[in-house]
């Protein structure tokens, strides 16, 4: 296996200097910059997907990258997701680090077999001889008025499969760092991009270090004492807004942004719940068999005596993702999270 150092060397000195300093960027642009930085750093990094070349992707996340890196590193693929992931696996076997774009959440399913039975398992099948540094970027979640298959949150379906890492950023900064850490990871990473946050802006330190933290460690994004709100991706903003509303009522909420759904940073959640005694998990995905169930089960096992109320879950219903006209009733709103917090306090 080529080491990171060897690979870095192959990038010749001719490339323009990466952007640096702190800038205010949308999340979409932050991912774009993260991809650019990773591609400049390592010429084995390549992008594959539908319409990611001249169009720059339907969300423009790959805008300008084909112009900079050429058609061999930014590949407009045939319209076949199993093919995208399947060929990415072969490229990884040859030493490349493919980053695949799936155009929308609902279109990852044709690739489900390659992801579940191949991508996730090849490292194990070969007893570690072959690594699978493949990233699969999936714009997910609702709230943008999309038609069917354009608002789903299928992360639980990947987290159940060993061999995959599953992450989702909630801020432009994390999006920038996490995409680079995902690309640097020797493990396959399913990188869920909260599409409702693509246009949200935030400061991004373009020189932020690239380690492995964001793939494993949750972040306490707001300190509090009375209740722990656990969220990730698009729901982190909902959690923070709920915390604001609770503050007005005189209740202090701690907000944890998980960042990773596989693994779950149980220790971070447990530490918080031991302190607050109450926990509400929020995600857009259906509650039934969703990430909230796993978090609730773990937290309850480890904080049984500290809990003043059962861990409650706020999320999507056990229905197909609804029509755009109704999606805002389906998505976990501040009001619904408040309702859950009230129920937790009523215990």
């Amino acid at each position: 296996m080529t080491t990171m150092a060897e690979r870095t060397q192959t990038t010749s000195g001719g490339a323009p200097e990466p952007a640096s300093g702190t800038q205010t960027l949308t999340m979409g642009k932050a991912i774009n910059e993260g991809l650019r930085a990773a591609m400049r750093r390592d010429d084995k990094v390549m992008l594959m997907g539908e319409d990611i070349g001249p169009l720059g992707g339907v969300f423009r996340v790959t805008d300008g990258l084909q112009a900079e890196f050429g058609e061999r590193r930014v590949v407009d693929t045939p319209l076949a997701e199993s093919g995208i992931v399947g060929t990415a696996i072969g490229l990884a076997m040859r030493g490349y680090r493919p980053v695949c774009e799936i155009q929308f959440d609902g279109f990852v399913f044709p690739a489900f077999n390659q992801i579940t039975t191949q991508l996730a398992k090849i490292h194990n099948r070969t007893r570690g001889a072959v690594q699978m540094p493949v990233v699969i970027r999936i714009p997910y979640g609702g709230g943008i008025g999309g038609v069917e298959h354009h608002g789903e949150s299928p992360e639980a379906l990947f987290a159940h499969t060993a061999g995959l890492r599953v992450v989702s950023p909630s801020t432009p900064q994390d999006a920038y760092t996490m995409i680079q850490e995902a690309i640097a990871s020797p493990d396959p990473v399913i990188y869920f991009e909260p599409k409702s946050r693509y246009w949200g802006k935030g400061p991004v330190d373009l020189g932020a270090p690239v380690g492995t933290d964001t793939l494993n460690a949750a972040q306490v994004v707001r300190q509090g004492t009375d209740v722990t709100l656990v969220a990730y991706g698009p729901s982190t903003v909902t959690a923070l807004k709920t915390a604001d509303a609770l503050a007005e009522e005189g209740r202090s909420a701690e907000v944890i942004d998980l960042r990773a759904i596989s693994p779950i940073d149980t220790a971070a959640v447990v530490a918080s719940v031991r302190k607050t005694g109450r926990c509400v998990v929020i995600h857009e995905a259906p509650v039934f068999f969703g990430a909230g169930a796993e978090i609730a089960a773990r937290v309850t096992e480890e904080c049984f005596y500290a809990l003043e109320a059962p861990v409650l879950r706020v999320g999507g219903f056990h229905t197909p993702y609804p029509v755009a006209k109704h999606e805002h009733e389906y998505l976990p709103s501040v009001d619904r999270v408040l309702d859950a917090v009230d129920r937790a306090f009523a215990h």
Partner: protein
Amino acid sequence: MTTTNGSNEAIPTLQLLDPRGSRVTTRGTKGYRDRAAALTTEDLRGMYRDMVLTRRFDDEATSLQRQGELALFAPARGQEAAQVGSAYALRTQDYVFPSYREHGVLHVRGLDPVDRLRFFRGSDHGGWNPTQHNTAVYTIVIGAHALHAVGYAMGVQRDATPHDKHDGTAVITYFGDGATSQGDVNEAMVYAAVNEAPVVFFLQNNQWAISEPTTRQTRTPLYRRGEAFGMPSLRVDGNDVLAVYAATQEALERARNGEGPSFIEAFTYRMGAHTTSDDPTRYRTSDQEEEWRRRDPIDRLGTLLRAEGGLDDDFEAEIKAAGDELGAKLRTGVRALDGGPAVSSTFDDVYATPHGVVAAERAWYEAYDAGDPPAPQYAIAESAQGGAR
């Protein structure tokens, strides 16, 4: 005639009406010419009218989208001959599996135009009752419905066992050049051929899959795929309504006669954007667009009809009036869709029989909804913020 494929290869292509609107009499096309000749002037006038109304539907829907009344729209502009020509060859009992751009087909099938926009409004995942028009709702996951079409055709075959008399039903499925790359479309061809299912694969090769030209999907003319899987296969000029009609009718006849599946590649052009969220200037030249504007399928039939005495200013005015009526109906009808089912309808029809989880969640939601002040009503215009799809 021949067409090309982004390369310089000359590909045999059935054409009965050339871009200047004259009937073509190439050798070897007699069977098809006879089929086209059987169309009366009245038929041709109907086709013309339906093509023009299909384009009008496009324009109306596009402007409704611009006004924030639709979340999205995928125009069929340029593909009217492929759609209307093939739909004219269908019988009522035939079953249609469209993808999402077949406005011309749905129009000819008699579907209510407002219903056809429910999906794009974001008020419905489907929009009509498939069993009433023998027309499935749209399938958004590219290629998936091709297998449904084959399965349906296998059902038709089974109905033809002694229990039941063969009712002469054929099945047609529409898909695009991009879709041919999907595993499902290929598996559909395998299943159709092995089962000799009464189904027609109708490919509209409009040369683009969003921003990708057909050369990103194939190095060979796509109709040859059908051949390799074991089906009679043909490329037709997709902007020639006569050729499309004749080829589709022939293929449907084979299906009805128990001669198995066929494959038709209608070579055409997507004159507009992929959807209202798309920006074609990023990936194609206006030269190409201009070139295809000169091969407009509607102009072509119009010229023929004028030459053959089937089109005059009165008829144009009549169609215009029908278009105005359609436009008015759409503008009123689409806006009225907001009076649709209540939010709790999200819980309807998830299952056909009671399911504990849905029942419990619905009960919770209704209590929550009743107890709290109603959440702010969803406004589609607001949320249609950027992002093509």
